């Protein structure tokens, strides 16, 4: 696939993350720089402990780096305070997690409505219903997460991620808790929605097959970005 000529939506500049464990200072990410252009699908791969999830957390603004900068759609993410980053996430970023992260006290429909409700959208119910139908859960709208299979829970999570029409979708091992067949369906669905919504996708995965479906692969080893 060819690189998109659009402006970068994510631009990481020398991102470094260090943590103190006892007396030892551990470097998890070191001088990681890259760009992702709008509409691109990029996979982050690497062995366990290579820093994949940490990188994703930084891109989402869920954590702060020890050094470096990160621009999301031209905005310096770490120049914002926590509330500013939360507001930016609400506006631009969607998430899909390995562990689904659905709220157990809410039905599928309510879980999908939640981001719109938090944003004060008046038509949350209609939009949530439409996207749940799109992911094939028309019959499961009023079921609680515990009443759904793993694959269905991840579909709800994908619907929740796309319902706000985010510019950037971050996915952390989205098939990690699913069997191979269900995982493949979920990945198909994610790529379809990605195309339909012109979303930029940053996907953390172990799975080489999934990473091959992305336009570009960022390979992490020992906290450093390898040439791809």
């Amino acid at each position, binding site marked *: 696939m060819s690189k998109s000529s659009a402006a970068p939506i994510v631009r990481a500049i020398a991102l470094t993350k260090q943590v103190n464990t006892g007396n030892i200072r551990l470097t998890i990410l070191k001088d990681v720089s890259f760009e992702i252009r709008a509409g691109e699908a990029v996979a982050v791969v690497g062995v366990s402990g290579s820093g994949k*999830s940490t990188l*994703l*957390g930084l891109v*989402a603004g*869920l*954590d702060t780096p020890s050094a470096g900068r990160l621009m999301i759609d031209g905005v310096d993410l770490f120049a914002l305070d*926590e*509330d500013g980053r*939360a*507001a*930016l*996430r*609400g*506006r631009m970023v969607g*998430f899909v*997690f390995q*562990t*689904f*992260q*659905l*709220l*157990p*006290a*809410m*039905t599928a429909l*309510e879980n999908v409505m*939640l*981001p719109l*409700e*938090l*944003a*004060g959208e008046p038509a949350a119910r209609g939009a949530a219903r439409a996207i749940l139908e799109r992911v094939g859960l028309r019959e499961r709208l009023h079921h*609680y*997460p*515990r009443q759904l299979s*793993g694959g269905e*829970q991840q579909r709800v999570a994908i619907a*929740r991620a796309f319902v706000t029409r985010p510019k950037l979708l971050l996915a*952390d091992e989205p098939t990690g*808790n699913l069997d191979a067949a269900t995982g493949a369906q979920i990945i198909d669905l994610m790529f379809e929605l990605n195309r339909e919504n012109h979303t930029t996708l940053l996907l953390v995965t172990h799975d080489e097959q999934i990473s091959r479906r992305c336009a570009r692969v960022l390979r992490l080893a020992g906290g450093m970005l390898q040439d791809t």
Partner: protein
Amino acid sequence: MTFVREFALAARLLWRDGRAGELHLIGAAVVIAVAAVTTVGFFTDRVQQALNRQANQLLGGDLVLVADRPLPPEFERAASRLDLATTRTMRFLSMARRGEKNLLTGIKAVSEGYPLRGEVRIADGLYGPDRTAREPPAPGTVWVDERLATGLGVTAGEEIGLGEISLRVAAILTQDPDSVIGFLNAAPRLLMNGADVGATGLAQPASRIRYRLQIAGEDARIGAFRAWAAGRLPPGSRLEGIGDARPEIRAALERAEKFLGLAALVSVVLAAVAISLAARRFLQRHLDGCAMMRCLGATQGALVRLHLVHFALLGCVAAGLGGVIGGLAQQGLAYSLGTLIAVTLPAPSWLPALQGVAAGLLLLLGFAMPPLAGLGHVSTLRVLRRELGAPRGMGLAGYLAGAAVIAGLIFWKAADAWLGAYVLGVSSAAMIAAGALVWVLLKLMAGVRGGVTWRFGVANLRRRTLGSIIQVVALALGIMALLTLTLVRSGLLAAWKDRLAPDAPNRFIINIQPDQLEPMNRFFAARGIALPRVFPMVRGRLVALNGRRVSPGDYADERARRLVDREFNLSWATRLQADNRIVAGHWWGEEAARKNQFSIERGIAETLGIKLGDVLTYDIAGSTVEAGVTSLRKVDWDTFNVNFFVIAPPGLLEGFPASHITSFHLPAGRAGVLNALVKEFPNFLVIDIAQVMTQVRRIMDQVARAVQFVFLFTLAAGVIVLYAAIAATLDERLFQATIMRTLGASRAQLARANLAEFAVIGALAGTIAAAGASVLSAVLAQKFLNLSYAPGFAVWITGVACGSLGVALAGYLGARKVVNVAPLQVLRSLG
């Protein structure tokens, strides 16, 4: 997002949580807390009023206006303007005749409506079954008491002479409510219709007649009448309420109030523990949701505001429901006590319900707010890494605000700083002791080798040290409260009742001259009646305080005016009576260092503004005696022993003309003894206090029932505490059990491990609770209720046995799911 939108979202989130069952525990805790506090509030409001009214039966009304000449009609008119019921009575002494026999008789002439409080009971013949009289005696008839009937040898249907007319005896009078107060109880009694008084010719201008206007109605209106009348009283008249008339009843009512207050306190503490546990669990379960919402763009402020509204709404709904339950419960209570009291209970005010709701909301917010503030800081990374713990504010510090709310509520409900301080002190000490003990035990257990189940259990307990400590502390507090309210309550009530033994003195004799002591002892010995201590007594009027003359005009308080206006009974003693306690200064003991000192009863000292060190001057038979106040005494008037407001050491008062006073128990059916006594010693004045004692016993019974009623709520709160304490670790247990079962542990192994762990926790909590309940009850009995009570061994046995068995059983039932649920289901629900 605008406030309206946020509010609406918070309401929707609340609705979703409620529907998913997330609010059951915390909601139930608030409902029970509010219901308990509300019901107890009604006790101290409505039931207290009822008890007061019942005490007022001894007055025949809520207030009595007593005068030595006919009262102007303006008083009756004023009472009727305030919607108060009134009735007039006249009392005087006169001779009743039958044939050759004459007997000085206390005559009470009553009119329509008498009595306004209490009941008159009559029988058709001597010692026959009696019944309530609905109307006063018809004109032309009288009711006579047992003494008059036996003294004159008259029976129902026969005539007796009174002044210029003859009247027919229609019944034997067995009880008239206001006969014990302010009347010459020495004489036999006769009740007649007020319409006949004129015809007897006994009411002459010079006759010594007491005119009484009895008044009854709502407390506020009575207060208004009292205020209105106080400034308009004609000379020779006074207003009397029950507190003014009988210190014994006042003491009993005060003690009743303290018992109820104690029950209320225990319920509040328990409810608070339940709410704190439930709030903690609720917030822990919502950590992931909060992290998720942060990911979805909710700001810290928005999250805190959402949860604040969420909790406020939950609090309002649950507290409202609790208030309604409290209201219904008090109706049930009113019914149960109402039939016993036989008076219409005054309407409840809304205040107790409002107080209950406020208490529930305060408790909920006190315990939920600090962790809530922490929720705003929940790490958003939690969505990627579950191992990230709870934010600050979920730990001990988070409980400080809640503890402050509990402390505030305890002081509020105790309405007595010392009681509040004792309850708070013992509860805190029990909590700290429990916490420290668990911590030390967990440290020690780490070194003990054991099987895999043991290692697993201990590792669990150690890993969640704070959670384990909170669990044991909560259970200990819960069991302590239950022990206090069950074993200790019945013990304390029994100790109170014991003080009023069935053979307690029910008659006082005053005006015994020194040379009559020996003949009197012989009189009683001959009739097989035991005579308790005889006390010397001189009468003196307080004329100066610290050298400055005092007169009734110096005091605004009506009781103070009366006390200064009349003569005091002064006595001397070396030993302090068992029902007296020195509250300030020192008692002189066997050898008083100096003769001129006084010990004063605390209540009267407060009324007259007398302090320790003040110098009092009494006028005794024309001479003055001056002495300093060296001690203040608290007197338990409800023991019905002879007691004095002012006591001196021997040597100060012996030179003055003294008479003696004593009390004795007159068994039922021996009225003849009194007739013989008065015949042999005509100067004796015999005071009948049997009815007052009956009244005090009734108050005791009602308090016991009322406390039992509160206990139902306490029990419910206790169950919630138990469940909340078990539920607190349920999620974690579920997860661990899943792992264990996946690794091959059998269900029986897991069940045994759970049972053992809960039994240990329960035994630990039970032991601490027994210690706490023992200390608390001993302190309360001694310092606060003035009762000698030592909690028995039963408290320890029950505490430990019920603690371990109850918690093990409840834990097993509560955590049954841990053993029975399919591991896959847990893994799936954990996502």
